[in-house]
């Protein structure tokens, strides 16, 4: 067997690749879609958990208003798995749906729905 063939045999596993894709969601980002059913000025704060189907992840009481926050996250992981080298990268976006409720009337007075961020599948861990 000549040297080039030997080299190819050992170099082949280096080039043989597998790929990995992973996805993980913490709480349901779909909560943003449900939040569009909340009408500031009309919806009661006590109805918010029923509409969203979840309790807030953050609750901050106040004299004039209380703050409710629903934090959710979405992660995409991507990897190039070689025999000797594995390159993986995961990108996460965590956002908070914010709702403000009047302490006296219990009416939702303000709501901030975060924008949707596009998550890319990226495996290369170096650089930006």
């Amino acid at each position: 067997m000549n040297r080039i063939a030997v080299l190819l045999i050992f170099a082949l596993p280096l080039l043989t690749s597998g790929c990995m894709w992973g996805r993980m969601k913490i709480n349901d980002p779909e909560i943003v879609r449900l939040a569009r059913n909340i009408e500031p000025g009309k919806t009661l704060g006590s109805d918010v958990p029923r509409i969203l189907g979840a309790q807030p992840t953050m609750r901050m009481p106040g004299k004039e208003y209380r703050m409710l926050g629903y934090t959710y996250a979405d992660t995409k992981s991507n990897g190039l798995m070689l025999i000797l080298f594995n390159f993986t990268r995961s990108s996460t976006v965590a956002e908070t749906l914010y709702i403000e409720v009047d302490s006296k009337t219990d009416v939702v007075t303000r709501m901030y729905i975060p924008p949707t961020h596009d998550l890319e599948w990226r495996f290369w861990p170096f650089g930006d």
Partner: protein
Amino acid sequence: MRWLSPFLLISLAAFCGCKFHRSVVNEYVRDIDTSWITPGVTTRSDIIDRIGVSPSTKEGGGISGSSFRWVCADTFTGTLEAGYIVTPTFERGTMYYSEDILVTFDREGVVELVSRTRSKDGKRVEIVEWRERK
């Protein structure tokens, strides 16, 4: 080229593999514009209306009654697994905030401080913005 074959042979026999992993949380924080925030004038409501609130998790920065904090957390881990049957594992990682925005409020909800720091490697942190109420 003669040295390459034994080198590859030893590499394959000795090492199970090297892993390079990068995790980036909230890359969008780098694009948040804070230049319009004026300490002493801008209120918590203005900030909520324009850029929302920070995630209520430690990795995402956090919220308190007197501050909002957004961070872009960057983690890099390199792992070397030596051997096949007995595999001692060597791992080294760094975690740092490549972008860190802190906004603090007074009791009335008016901005007291806007601070923004940036780092490319976690070793050198550059303060790119620091504005306090006069």
